[in-house]
């Protein structure tokens, strides 16, 4: 994991001091709420329906146990004993008091954490593959480049007042777990024919009111030029992106209005004029950052663990959990463990201070002190010995964290919706809770197989409904909460935007609708076909018919 040196530590400490000054000016009345707003928004502090909300950055979703404990402690000390993990691998506190926020940030700074650029029209926290450094088939650890981007983008003087917020995701695997095609910039590290590593640069993907799959503007960018190339993209966007209409201000609109290839031309021209040696990091600095992401000291183990296989035979629930919640690791004898934050009828992504403490303790003992946050609002223990899986499972179960539903119908992404968010049309959380209750039976869920349901409370699409196999969007119809269903979306390497199924449904109808769709799929699937595959094979009309026929 990356560790701060005195430069990093000083930057964060100075930022907290600056923000403390701004809060003092607000509390003393020197700043009006209107004047304070842009300042707090530079620091992740939103004013929500009922209270301030503070968003803490979790760079590329990686946490140490000490950091997880500090997040738990802050939830106890400054909030109501829980926090919320978001789809951008960040964490939100829903109830901090303004006067406490500088102290909270001071506490987090002690464990090398901050809220810098978690809001505002700037380059946001860079996200990545939650299995980085652990899964097979990676070119290298993508977090090296996430950290390179983190430093370059922090307080970037030119790009802090962009037309709109700006999100970058990086992956180094063919299996896209970071949804890179629906980001402002998606970077895929891969090897060219000469065996050199470089980036495919994808620009202009995004969700919201006008969803787009990103456009590849460069197939292969040598790694060492990443920052100068990003600087060229951002400069073209800063100068030419629309500022007259917030809904048309994201880079996706510029890329599509210009045309993908012409946009690529603009970037290449700007890049050709940039003095690259002033922007790109020298090899020594890249190597310094690389060192922090060297793999932990895995023991030489045999691929199979007898103890593990034995326990699987003895304990059915463990067997199911192992099947659904663990993933193959690149080191023999190790596994990747997913921790579901989607217990049946729970709030997707919420964790209590006790749960966070439990995860911290387990990670410390069994996962080289590391935890990851996923964009699907779950947690990951990246490096667990297979021999220890049963012990880890038992410890998670004791903390209520062993729900075996990763990737299944109840592993739902839901935005905060009308329960918290001031922009919402509808509630999202109760819909997620009711769907998960309807499909409470885990055996039945496993039979249904991979099914990604994603719920947004308004067209801003924080719940990624466009890329849900089943997407649910909250709309306001004459003051009543209605939900629109989209079908066939995907945020993975086979990315697609879901299609609207038909008329909106009331909150009573929506859970039945999901059940009808699932039933139709079960009757018509072939072999091991997923819901998404069946949808793509059979076509939208059949599913729409099934959805609306009896209604």
């Amino acid at each position, binding site marked *: 994991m990356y560790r701060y040196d005195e430069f990093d530590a000083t930057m964060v400490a*100075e930022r907290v001091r600056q923000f403390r000054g701004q809060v003092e000016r607000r509390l003393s009345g020197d700043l009006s709420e209107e004047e304070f707003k842009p300042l707090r928004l530079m620091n992740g502090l939103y004013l929500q329906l009922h209270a301030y909300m503070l968003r803490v950055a979790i760079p590329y979703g990686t946490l140490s146990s000490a950091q997880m404990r500090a997040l738990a402690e802050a939830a106890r000390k400054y909030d109501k004993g829980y926090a919320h993990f978001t789809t951008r691998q960040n964490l939100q506190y829903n109830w901090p008091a303004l006067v406490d926020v500088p102290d909270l940030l001071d506490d987090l700074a002690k464990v090398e954490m901050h809220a810098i650029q978690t809001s505002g029209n700037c380059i946001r926290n860079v996200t990545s593959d939650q299995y980085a450094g652990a899964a097979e088939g990676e070119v290298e650890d993508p977090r090296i480049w996430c950290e390179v981007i983190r*430093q370059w983008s922090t*307080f970037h003087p*030119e790009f*802090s007042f*962009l037309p709109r917020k700006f999100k970058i995701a990086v992956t180094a695997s063919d299996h896209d777990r970071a949804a890179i095609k629906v980001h402002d910039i998606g970077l895929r590290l891969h090897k060219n024919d000469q065996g050199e590593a470089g980036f495919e640069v994808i620009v202009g993907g995004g969700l919201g009111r006008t969803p787009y799959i990103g456009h590849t503007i460069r197939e292969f960018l040598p790694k060492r030029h990443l920052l100068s190339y990003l600087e060229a993209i951002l*400069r073209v966007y800063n*100068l030419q992106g629309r500022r007259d209409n917030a809904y048309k201000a994201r880079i996706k609109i510029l890329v599509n209005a210009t045309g993908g290839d012409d946009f690529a031309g603009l970037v290449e021209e700007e890049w050709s004029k940039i003095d690259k040696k*002033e922007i790109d990091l020298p090899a020594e600095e890249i190597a310094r950052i690389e060192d922090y992401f060297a793999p932990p000291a895995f023991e030489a183990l045999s691929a199979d663990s007898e103890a593990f296989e034995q326990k699987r035979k003895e304990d059915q629930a463990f067997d199911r959990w192992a099947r659904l919640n663990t993933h193959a690791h690149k080191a023999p004898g190790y596994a990747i463990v997913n921790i579901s934050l989607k217990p049946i009828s729970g709030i997707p992504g919420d964790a209590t201070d006790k749960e966070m403490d439990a995860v911290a303790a387990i990670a410390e003992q069994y996962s080289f002190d590391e935890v990851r946050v996923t964009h699907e609002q779950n947690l990951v223990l990246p490096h667990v010995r297979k021999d220890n899986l049963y012990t880890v499972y038992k410890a998670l179960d004791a903390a209520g964290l062993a729900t075996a539903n990763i990737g299944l119908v109840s592993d739902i992404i839901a935005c905060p919706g009308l329960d918290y968010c001031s922009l919402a049309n509808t509630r999202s959380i109760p819909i997620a809770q009711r769907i998960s209750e309807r499909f409470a039976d885990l055996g039945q869920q496993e039979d249904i197989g991979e099914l990604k349901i994603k719920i947004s409370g308004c067209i801003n699409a924080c719940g990624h409904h466009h890329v849900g196999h089943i997407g649910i969007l909250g709309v306001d119809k004459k003051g009543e909460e209605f939900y629109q269903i989209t079908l066939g979306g995907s945020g993975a390497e086979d990315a697609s935007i879901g299609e609207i199924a038909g008329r909106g449904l009331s909150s009573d109808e929506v859970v039945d609708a999901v059940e009808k769709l699932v039933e139709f799929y079960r009757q018509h699937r072939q072999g091991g076909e997923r819901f998404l595959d069946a949808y793509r094979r059979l076509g939208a009309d059949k599913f729409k018919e099934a959805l609306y026929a009896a209604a």
Partner: protein
Amino acid sequence: MPLLKFSGNRLYPAVEEAKNEVTLDEWRANRFAHADATALVVPNDADISDIGADVSGFSAIILEFPAFKDGRAYSQARLLRERFGFAGEIRARGAVLRDQLFFMKRCGFDAFEFSGPNADAAAGAMHEFSFAYQGAADDYDPVWRRRLSRAAAA
């Protein structure tokens, strides 16, 4: 509107000397009619990719922030300094507030028509950060370069 200038690593209140301003459009339409202009006003949606020949005779270029959120002039200032080598004054006009001054300075601005409250206290904004991660138009050494020189010295 108090005028602040930055030089010698310090922000101080400056006395406004009379400037003869001309907008980029006026200038490009008829250079001879504006031969005595000293300051060029460049709107923030102007294409400045070929501005190099236009700027040489001016002692100041004025860039505009119609709203604090509209950050186009940050890019324009960097291009003027770094690509076109403009060495005269670059002045910020419009929504010029305390908490933007540091970014503006880093992009090459050295004069500010300050529009916020408390101009006297604004100087502090220039010194809230000891380091910068990235190179820009000012003389901050990026952190990576400091790391290199420290490693070399060790």
